[in-house]
């Protein structure tokens, strides 16, 4: 792996952000699996798609900036895109589940 060449001041926060992001995504997906109703289930994966994705994108910004030795922020594009598009899908799904006949 090429990740061993990252200097320590960037590797430690990036590692912490990766661990936190992975755990948040796991918890959100477990909630999607374990909760009992659709209206409860739609809340759970938003944790992974906002905070988990944000943590991993921040770690990616840190590592790529440390490897290139200049600020590399194009991962913000993915963050803006996910923040813009994930409520659209959630709202459409919620309205679909409200208007669809049960069963």
């Amino acid at each position, binding site marked *: 792996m090429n*990740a061993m060449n990252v200097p320590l001041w960037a*590797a430690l926060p990036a590692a912490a952000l990766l*661990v936190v992001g*992975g755990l948040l995504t796991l918890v959100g997906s477990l909630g999607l699996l374990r909760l009992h109703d659709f209206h409860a289930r739609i809340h759970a994966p938003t944790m992974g798609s906002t905070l988990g994705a944000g943590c991993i994108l921040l770690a*990616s910004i840190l*590592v790529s900036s440390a490897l290139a030795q200049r600020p590399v922020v194009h991962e913000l594009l993915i963050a803006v*895109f996910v923040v813009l598009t994930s409520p659209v899908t959630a709202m*459409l799904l919620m309205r679909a589940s409200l208007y669809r006949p049960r069963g």
Partner: protein
Amino acid sequence: MNYVLPWAVYFALMCVSVAMGCAAIRLLRGPQAQDRVLALDTLYISGMLVVLTLGIGFGSGIYFDIALLIALFGFVGATAMAKFLLRGEVIEP
């Protein structure tokens, strides 16, 4: 030479892979159609996170483009399916 970042990458890959497995189980056995679409939404977000984590691990910039494309096409697919569930057709005249 420090090994903290590769192990964090392995840990995050394992977590996000288990999350993808949970979403796949929900995709397979969701009782209603909107459960399956929600599981698909979670699945593409988790896949994007796997690609980003691999990009951190290998220190390459190519994975960013793949993650952006996954986010784009995943949003288009999930929104099209949610719109189909809502109205019965995707693009209305």
